[in-house]
């Protein structure tokens, strides 16, 4: 049923991901492989907002709250247990539960657009402030010291499930992250092709009509928001594993704005868009950071403005639109010629 609706774009994207996953470790050096690993982790984060905002129509300024919560959950659990499997699982569950509670609070209170933005932003800032202030010996969860603004260094990294001593090497971690990205990407498409996904998109298009047709708008919004929280949490655990480090910066406004820029640049209402936006912008940020030519904020600000003002749909939908226009332009002279004859 679902497979009949699979478009060519999805197959091409999935194939490209598999190609990168298999090919990259053969051609690039270890440093570049680590770069690719963090890019792929962030792509999962971009997908989480891509589905919540692009398909659910919920502009969440707090995606970094779930990301950070996932990262900290992983850090605290991994330090306490000394084994990563449970930590990864919890890094999905904790943000999801929190997102469900917050979603219940917001959507069942019938809050919308800007007010939703204020609440999600406030929540993120609360986390940022609180984690920043947890310096000192008093703030510890089990054996894990939170260390306030200094962050938690030398976290245990991923290991083979069940054998804490056998850590994954960079190549294996890369395979794992790419596999997770592929699963999230294909899984989200499958979900959006299902009945549930179609109702979510319908709610984005016209809330009142959906309600009149008998769908529970609040429940659908809450569920897609919860799913977004879980995916962002997963990205958080991957990020914490990548650097073996987590600091309150995961909750910062900078992180939030980055996620939003990725989705805007790539294209709202697509899933491949946020992935492309994320890779392009991260590559740009890395290049700008190493070359010191111009301030990164300055360039990002200009890109942000240009996209909102001139390319509001983002790269992927604009390319699609351009192609459609070109093909109609090509079809028109042919049609005219027929009329003339």
């Amino acid at each position: 049923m679902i497979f009949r609706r699979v478009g060519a774009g999805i197959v091409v994207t999935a194939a490209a991901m598999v190609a990168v996953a298999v090919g990259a470790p053969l051609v690039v050096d270890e440093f570049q492989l680590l770069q690719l690993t963090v890019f792929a982790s962030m792509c999962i984060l971009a997908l989480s907002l891509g589905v919540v905002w692009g398909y659910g129509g919920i502009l969440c300024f707090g995606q970094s709250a779930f990301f950070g919560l996932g990262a900290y959950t992983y850090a605290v659990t991994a330090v306490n247990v000394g084994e990563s499997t449970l930590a990864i699982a919890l890094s999905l569950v904790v943000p999801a539960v929190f997102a469900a509670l917050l979603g219940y609070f917001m959507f069942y209170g019938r809050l919308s657009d800007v007010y939703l933005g204020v609440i999600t932003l406030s929540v993120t800032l609360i986390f940022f402030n609180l984690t920043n202030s947890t310096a000192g010996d008093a703030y510890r969860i089990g054996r894990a010291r939170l260390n306030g603004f200094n962050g938690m260094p030398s976290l245990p990294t991923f290991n083979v499930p069940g054998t804490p001593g056998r850590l994954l090497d960079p190549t294996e971690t890369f395979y794992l992250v790419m596999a997770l990205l592929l699963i999230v990407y294909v899984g989200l498409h499958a979900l959006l092709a299902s009945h549930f996904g179609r109702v979510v998109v319908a709610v984005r298009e016209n809330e009142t009509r959906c309600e009149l047709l008998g769908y529970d708008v609040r429940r659908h919004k809450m569920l897609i928001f919860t799913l977004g929280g879980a995916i962002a949490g997963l990205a958080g655990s991957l990020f914490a594993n990548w650097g073996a480090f987590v600091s309150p910066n995961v909750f910062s406004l900078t992180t939030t704005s980055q996620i939003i820029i990725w989705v805007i640049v790539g294209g709202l209402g697509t899933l491949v868009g946020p992935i492309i936006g994320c890779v392009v912008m991260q590559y740009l940020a890395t290049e700008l950071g190493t070359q010191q030519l111009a301030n990164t904020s300055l360039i990002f600000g200009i890109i942000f403005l240009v996209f909102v003002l001139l390319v509001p749909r983002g790269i992927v939908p604009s390319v699609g639109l351009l192609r459609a226009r070109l093909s109609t332009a090509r079809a028109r002279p042919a049609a005219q010629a027929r009329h003339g004859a």
Partner: protein
Amino acid sequence: MDLAVVLALEILNGIASLVLISVGLAIVFGMMRVINLAHGEFLMLGGYAAIVATNHGVNIWIAMLVVSPIVVGIIGVVAERLIIRVLYGRMIDTLLATWGLSLFFIGLVTTIFGNTVAGIGAPLGSIAVGRYSISLYRLLLVGIAAAILLAIYAVLRTTRLGLLARGTMENPNMAAALGVSPPRVYAATFGVGAAITGLAGGLLAPISGVLPTVGAAYVAKAFITVISGGTAIMAGTASAALLFGTVNQLLTYLTTPVIGEAGLLAAAILLLRVLPHGITGKLFRGSL
């Protein structure tokens, strides 16, 4: 007793600084339904304008009260002409575009002044209340915050400009039919909002110092105060600042500044859950 006076003044200070950082945003949101996320950077630019002017030998009062509002007012008008104008009626797009503008200003100022704290000493001395001493400058800020609110009220209520502004806010099409040009009113409003923001930035510079990224600390608080206040400029800002300033300072006194800050944000979340359109969406309806 002394402690009670000091605590009361601290609370007043908290309220006044919330009013100062959010009133410019409130004008723009109340009149035009535009959320300016570059608001924090307008405050930051006001601060830099005051500091640069003072360092070049301008009297500190002139720098704070004249140079800052003029500089930021001009920046505001230019931003309105180039960016905001294109996006009227598209709240989310404006919000995103001004976020881009905010990043742009942070990058620009970092490139020019470097990523270091700049500051000027607070003028005026301090007075003693029993065993405590209180900065006179902070007291003056309370007065200025009240004066700004009263001035806005007076302009909107009694002058012809205020009437035009209120009319355009109420019904832009009708105002246009009667010969008022809404785009010009919007541009002027945005400029005035930016100028007041610049003034606030200049006034706060001696207290908090300025850093290219200082705007982020302001914008969230201002954004939250304005949205929680609702669309009435005066009543909304004043009531939300009163509530949040009190919560913040009391919790800060009882626990730590961090808990105070978190308390402010939590209060905003609860408030919006109960009153989804802000305080003035439900109470004091029809006030300014």
